């Protein structure tokens, strides 16, 4: 395998892991409520920016990161409690617009609380590149991949092995039945938002040392996360991961072999092609409508 290809693969997997985390955030909330949370990208942004602030206040990196995740989770919970829950009963489109409003609000707050400059986080374990098979890998990339893997394992365990996780899955399959079984759908939605907030924040913190962070990084990351979630099949956890990785790899390969300017175009063309051929995404449920 050529060193160049390997390089692109590393870059692609790293970005892909981040997209996967963001995509999971979308899927988890979608599963609980059919809503697409357009503020998901802002969770990513808050995670990174909050860590930067807390670092400046003197906290050690691990503590700053943890606190940032907590802050973002609180923001996510607030979004659910104060906005989404209040609008309970509104149509899906209305709820989506509310999350769009929230994303604008959060971006605005970010530009006030912080500023409009680009900030960097120090790499977790230094930035001396590691040579591997002729290509170079940033240690931060290993962190990204490692932590993502750990998070995925934790999520898998949560949704498949704990009672609460299974309750959440049940809600996504049949809300009414879940309610009748005594599951509080409201609580499930709250937990979903909290989880998505934490996932987003984690993604933001992991990637900030590589791609920097700023008040508006959420827009593109949210967009790509959404694209990844759809590509893999909305509502499917494995789909979100697959979609994220594929998107990251496609982008890296396109940027490397074709043109950096057109990497997004190529990625989206491929997504469009996949959707036209598989209207429910790669791993999406192909449920036939019962009439």
């Amino acid at each position: 395998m050529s060193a160049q290809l390997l390089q692109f693969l590393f870059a692609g997997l790293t970005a892909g892991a981040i997209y996967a985390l963001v995509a999971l955030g979308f899927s988890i909330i979608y599963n609980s409520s059919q809503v697409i949370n357009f503020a998901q990208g802002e969770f990513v942004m808050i995670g990174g920016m909050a860590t930067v602030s807390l670092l400046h206040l003197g906290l050690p990196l691990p503590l700053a990161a943890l606190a940032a995740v907590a802050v973002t989770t609180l923001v996510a919970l607030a979004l659910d409690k104060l906005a989404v829950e209040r609008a309970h009963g509104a149509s899906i489109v209305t709820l989506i617009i509310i999350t769009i409003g929230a994303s604008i609000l959060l971006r605005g707050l970010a530009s006030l609380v912080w500023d409009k400059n680009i900030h960097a986080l120090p790499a977790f374990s230094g930035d001396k590149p590691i040579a591997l098979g002729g290509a170079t890998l940033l240690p931060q990339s290993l962190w990204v991949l490692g932590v993502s893997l750990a998070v995925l394992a934790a999520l898998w365990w949560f949704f498949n092995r704990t009672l609460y996780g299974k309750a959440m899955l049940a809600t996504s399959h049949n809300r009414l039945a879940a309610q009748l079984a005594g599951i509080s759908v409201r609580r499930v939605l709250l937990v979903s938002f909290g989880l998505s907030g934490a996932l987003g924040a984690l993604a933001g913190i992991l990637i900030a040392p590589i791609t920097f962070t700023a008040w508006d990084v959420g827009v593109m990351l949210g967009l790509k996360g959404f694209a990844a979630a759809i590509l893999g099949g909305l509502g499917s956890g494995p789909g979100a991961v697959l979609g994220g990785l594929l998107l990251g790899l496609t982008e890296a390969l396109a940027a490397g072999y074709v043109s950096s300017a057109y990497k997004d175009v190529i990625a989206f063309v491929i997504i469009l092609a996949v959707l036209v051929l598989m209207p429910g995404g790669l791993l999406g449920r192909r449920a036939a409508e019962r009439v």
Partner: protein
Amino acid sequence: MLARLGAARGGGLLALALAVALLPLALVNQYLYDVAILVGLNAIVCVGLNLLIGYAGQISLGHAGFFALGGYGSAILCVRYGWPPLSALPASIASVTLLAFLVGRPILRLKGHYLAMATLGLGVIITVVLATEDRFTGGPDGMSVPPLALFGHALRGERVWYWMVGALLLACVWFALNLVESPRGRALRALHGSEVAAEMIGIDSARHKLVVFVLSAGLAAAAGALTAHYSGFITPSQGSFLRSIELVTMVVFGGMASTFGAVVGAAVLTTLPQLLTPLKDYEMVVFGAVMMFTMIFMPRGIVPTLAGLFRPKARP
């Protein structure tokens, strides 16, 4: 019931016509005229988008792409190929309409969030191409656009444009209202209500969706081309994802399945940022907050909620 509907429609059209006719009294300077014209142009896009979202029940998160393409098409034909603006404009609109037709067929087979993603992707593709092919488009900084000229006279000046856009908006609203109340409009609403039942009464859902998609894309392209000639320049950000979201928000905000709602939504969400500029850094925060509050307390949008307040209660 028909009489009531007719009165609502006639009343609404009259109110809009009066608003257009009387607004200049309040427009005391060039800046206000500018805002009014932008409102009108946005409203034209929203009327078309509302047909797609509110009536046909589809979604497009890439309509700003058609808007930008309309503008760039006309600009490129004028600047790079020397076409007169009066022929470049319709040619550009026709080309974008054709593109929408070609792309629409495969895309409209998708539903819900998948359709949203496909249209979003389309918008991003358009924007990136526009920003990258700088030989034609001037790159990320955009390009300048010559003014529209009628019989050798350049159409400049806010007043001329105001009346032109006002008249066009009224025409679009009239066409849209007619369409909605016609059997075709009923077919669209049926499609939205239940696609399978609509098919079973003979409605070719694919074709109807495509027609509305193409129509709304054409309107967006027209508004885009007009905006380009009016403001004298165009940039790729006119087609951005954020812009597309803005347009959808205007439609939902004003009230889906309401043509007047689309106009109101465009008016509110175009002027609001302008009103908030004194707040400078707080502009985004207030704007986002206003959006959230309005949708929480008026979930069906402004016009349907207000109309509901005035309508007599239905029989129990």
